[in-house]
């Protein structure tokens, strides 16, 4: 089958580098033993799924409320539409709370894997889900999310693949007063494309999507986020931090759309980039499209370098230059990661970021 990929001539894909995908799509999985033990971060309570190259490893999974098999999800998105067939589903009825932290680990051993997922929370239901991507190859995922009235979903994604590519497509629809908080951390060696379309479909919903993308070497991180306020009284927060070293590039296109009826929308967007070398690239593209007249939308986008005065201050107290740079870089991404509510997840993200910085 021919792999039809979007062209960088299309505006939404201009900063993407999908050139590795055809070869990965044609390659087979390497297979071999997979050690996932160190990747679980939660306690005994939460459900766990381990996917190796997109296939469920039943022996090392405990599905709990999760269903595996065919998934009711479809997308017109150029990468998301490739994720068809079997995957996982979390459907929670009214007032149900999934116990503990749900963990989904995706291990890739080369080649490509496409996996759909569906999260549907009824009125007042709630769940916390963390997904972790490791290994090598192309992991392509589609996640469709629908939240009923006052439902709450915390979603965290750790992008830690050593090489290859991870592409995520999230499509979410939030009901009245529902809350979706998504935090992502790119702290591996793989290329990344994050696509998200979040719609606040009913009044008073809350959507937060953000995180930190750390890139070095030749790496490309690329996120394209659209938050759409379709109903009044909604709030959204997009807080992203992009760090690029060497000749890497980290790109963020974040868009807020406010429909004519979505009065009293409170939107906030903070995009900040840090260049660790002059040869690196950070692209930031904040976009606002507002059709309502009673709206508060704060936004800011800045790119800079580490503060030379702060570096010298740290070094003058005995901290070696490399460590001083790591401390300031860590501080730069702190506000994107410190806001994670769940302590276990926050600690795991912090450890991932510190590991990335320690490898400098």
């Amino acid at each position, binding site marked *: 089958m021919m792999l039809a990929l979007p062209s960088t001539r299309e505006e939404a894909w201009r900063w993407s580098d999908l050139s590795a995908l055809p070869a990965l799509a044609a390659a087979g999985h390497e297979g071999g033993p997979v050690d996932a033990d160190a990747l679980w971060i939660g306690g005994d309570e939460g459900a766990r799924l381990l996917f190796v190259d997109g296939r469920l490893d039943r022996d090392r999974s405990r599905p709990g409320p999760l269903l595996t098999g065919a998934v009711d999800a479809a997308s017109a998105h150029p990468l998301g539409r490739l994720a068809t067939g079997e995957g996982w589903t979390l459907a929670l009825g009214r007032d149900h709370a999934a116990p503990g932290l749900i963990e989904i680990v995706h291990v890739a051993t080369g080649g490509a894997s496409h996996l759909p997922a569906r999260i549907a929370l009824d009125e007042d239901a709630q769940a916390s889900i963390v997904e972790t991507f490791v290994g090598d190859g192309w992991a392509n995922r589609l996640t469709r999310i629908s939240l009923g009235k006052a439902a709450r979903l915390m979603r965290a994604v750790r992008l830690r693949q050593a090489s290859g590519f991870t592409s995520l497509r999230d499509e979410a629809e939030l009901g009245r007063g529902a809350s979706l908080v998504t935090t992502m951390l790119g702290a591996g060696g793989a290329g990344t494309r994050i696509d998200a379309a979040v719609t606040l479909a009913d009044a008073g919903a809350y959507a937060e999507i953000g995180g930190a993308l750390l890139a070095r070497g030749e790496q490309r991180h690329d996120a394209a986020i659209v938050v759409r306020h379709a109903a009044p009284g909604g709030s959204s927060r997009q807080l992203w931090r992009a760090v690029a070293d060497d000749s890497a590039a980290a790109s963020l296109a974040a868009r807020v759309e406010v429909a004519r009826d979505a009065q009293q929308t409170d939107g906030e967007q903070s995009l900040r980039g840090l260049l660790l070398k002059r040869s690196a690239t950070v692209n930031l593209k904040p976009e606002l499209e507002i059709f309502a007249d009673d709206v508060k939308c704060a936004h800011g986008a800045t790119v800079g370098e580490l*503060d030379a005065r702060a570096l*010298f201050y740290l070094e*003058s*107290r*005995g901290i070696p230059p490399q460590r001083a740079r790591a401390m300031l870089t860590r*501080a*730069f991404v702190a*506000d994107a990661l410190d806001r994670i509510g769940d302590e276990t997840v926050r600690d795991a993200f912090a450890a991932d970021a510190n590991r990335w910085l320690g490898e400098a």
Partner: protein
Amino acid sequence: MLKIENLHATVDDKPILKGLTLSLNPGEIHAIMGPNGAGKSTLSYVLGGRPGYEVTEGSVTFDGADLLAMAPHERAAAGLFLGFQYPVEIPGVSNVQFLREALNAQRKQRGEEPLSGGAFLKVAKAQADGLGLSMDMLKRPVNVGFSGGEKKRNEMVQMGIIDPKLAILDETDSGLDIDALRVIGEGINRIMRKPDKAVLLITHYQRLLDYVRPDFVHVLAAGRIVRSGGPELAHELEREGYGALAA
């Protein structure tokens, strides 16, 4: 301990220090005074190793070693402490984390064991108490939201924790009210007035010298030491101004 000989330095290719010679022995406190633009801060940055401050001639040895060949963090590990005129605010990095890491990096460089978290906090608390800074403030991000006086106290707390052999204090008295000046002065005496330590106090005004009595006073003008003397020289400067002396 510190031997500066015929030091020339430029900033942005502009000559600032033009043949400065100065020696500090253990147990001595030297004050360097001078008008604005004389090169006082440049001297402190050159000794600390700040990028952009280029030495074009001369030498500086610290305990016999070539100070100018060392990176800033190596100078710190060798026992040099630079007190900043304008301490830098660093959001996202807590004071205690920064200081513990700084101290242990220095200890590692010297081949010493790292200090445990508990042992470090004990040392930090003692120093913070001595300078009237709460532990709460020490846990906050470095200098963020600190008043001018609090930043200077924090410099002294850092000096107390790091316990250096040689302190270069650049206008540590600027922006302090009279009470803070006394606290800072007492701090300098308590931490640094020891037979095996030395201090280079860089100041524009004489008033800090009421609290920290220098053994020697030097006048820096146009990049060189133009006059040296005992503590009485500071009073003379206060009376007569720099103009007459530098001429």
